[in-house]
């Protein structure tokens, strides 16, 4: 049996996982399901695209590529800058919209507001860039053997490696830094956190920034391996929610594992029933989790 599909599933799963970590953090700290998270992914990617083009143009297009990868350093620099900008976008959206509704204490109105914001942000991308797909690069890469008869492109190797680094950094950040501690505290018990001296508004800002950074990483990975479209984030949203709920809301490792499971399950489904119904896999996983164990694999609350 050809296991090649597993490789694509793992790469897809890694980027779903990164997005889902952002979803699970913002869900557990802000206490609502943010439907605009997909738009952070798309905006982060388009900003990376614009900045990459700008940097390359600035250097007269002579920036070359890094070793065997399909892209050069401008993409990495642009990605970092776009991640920061996307964090800023999330904070701005919170300031303009969510913070005004937060005081009213109705989570479902915030879900609705995020749904409206997602529609507006996505359509704005469509207005600016049209719905035609864009690409970081159009080069075709040669895949190299990675064992078990699986071949990976150098880009895929790099992205899996990058995901691992991000996961380790995030894990260290959450378990050891003061901000990470404060985030865990607010996620478990916001009132006690305030009593203990945690500035919840500051934690919320940090959470949005992290969500924006992870969304950008996830989107750029998708942009490098597939393509860039205004709907790219919207189409990822259901897999992200499925992964976050499967892993257990609030659990970072759960979201990452959930992402991998969803990504690989999609790849398996494509093998069995074809690509047409790929997007339904996340829905089936979601329904199964809600039926069997709504708190998810590592969840502490439903």
């Amino acid at each position: 049996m050809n296991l090649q599909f597993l490789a694509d599933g793992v790469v897809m799963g890694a980027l779903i996982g990164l997005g889902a970590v952002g979803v699970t953090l913002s869900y557990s700290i802000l206490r609502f399901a943010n439907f605009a998270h997909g738009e952070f992914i798309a905006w982060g990617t388009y900003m990376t695209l614009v900045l990459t083009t700008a940097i390359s143009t600035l250097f007269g297009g002579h920036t070359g590529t890094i070793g065997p990868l399909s892209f050069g350093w401008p993409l990495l620099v642009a990605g970092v800058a776009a991640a920061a900008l996307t964090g800023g976008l999330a904070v701005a959206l919170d300031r303009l919209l969510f913070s005004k509704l937060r005081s009213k204490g109705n989570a479902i109105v915030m879900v609705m507001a995020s749904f409206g914001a997602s529609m507006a942000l996505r359509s704005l991308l469509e207005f600016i860039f049209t719905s035609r797909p864009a690409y970081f690069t159009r080069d075709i890469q040669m895949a190299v053997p990675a064992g078990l008869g699986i071949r990976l492109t150098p880009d895929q190797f790099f992205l899996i490696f990058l995901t691992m680094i991000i996961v380790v950094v995030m894990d260290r950040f959450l378990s050891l830094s003061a901000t990470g501690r404060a985030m865990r505290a607010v996620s478990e018990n916001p009132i006690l956190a305030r009593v203990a001296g945690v500035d919840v508004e500051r934690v919320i800002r940090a959470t949005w920034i992290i969500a924006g950074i992870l969304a950008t990483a996830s989107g750029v990975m998708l942009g490098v391996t597939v393509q860039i479209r205004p709907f790219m984030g919207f189409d990822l949203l259901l897999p992200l929610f499925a992964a976050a709920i499967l892993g257990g809301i609030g659990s970072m490792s759960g979201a990452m594992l959930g992402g991998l499971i969803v990504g690989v399950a999609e790849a398996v489904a494509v093998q069995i029933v074809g690509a047409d119904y790929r997007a339904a896999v996340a829905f089936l996983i979601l329904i199964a989790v809600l039926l069997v164990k709504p708190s998810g694999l590592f969840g502490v609350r439903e």
Partner: protein
Amino acid sequence: MILDLITYGAFFLVTALSYGIICLGLNVQWGQTGLFNVGVAGFVAIGAYTSALLTTPDVVERFGGFDLPIWIGWISAAFVSGLAAAFIGVITLRLRADYLAITTFGIAITIQLVVLNAITITGGPFGIGFIPRPFSGLQEHPLLFNLANLSLVCGITGGVYYALERLIHGPWGRVLRAIREDEAAAASLGKNAKVFRLQAFVLGSAVMGFAGAIQAHFIGFIAPENYLSAITFQVWAMLIIGGSGNNRGALLGAILVWALWSITGAALGLIVPAEYQARAAALQIVFIGIGLAAILVVRPRGLLGEVTKVSRVLIDR
């Protein structure tokens, strides 16, 4: 000229009122019960496709049609949409409120996939044509045809409105509001609270499916692209702007938003060059999105708020 205007007016109102009925369904779920359904497009699509399959003449290359009378199609549409809602509701209504939002979002996407890919049943991207239109014998006379349809849709809207008002102001509606407003009341009802929520969710979705069928039969043609998330979004904007919790607000919002949508659409069509039409349409959605968010922040009760005063303390604070 005047006749053309009346014909267009009737056509406009039929479409707006069919959205109005969807809004009435959504109002049972959101306005009365506080359930957030992000899958309106899905339930509308289920209704439209069910009725289309049942009532279209038999076609060789696709499963069905069964050539049944229109009214059977409409009733079945409501029934099948309600059934889908029952499936989702049983699984998610016992959980956190946002899980319903996520799951309905998921079912809308899944239904979109099915109508797009199950070509032998749904016609795939080409959709289903030749859906029988009410009063098709009058099609030669656009004015009469549109007026006949308008009176039919008016009658149906009035009927649905009246039935829902009766329900909402009766004991059933009172229980729903008690569950929505008061955690303690919900808790004291225990398991029953879930049953009431489920009933409201199923009823609302059935109304949406019914409205979807009416739309399909009025237009005579359906395709997957009519049931994208933009529809969900428009219906939500209609309800929130008109005033959630208030059935008259729901209808007013539907007519108002549809008028705005049609006028801006027509204006953009005139002003914007053809190659930028898609972009202009995107801009329309941006404005509705901003409008929806602004209403939520500034005037959460919409133009016509809920008539009851229970929620005033909660909402105005």
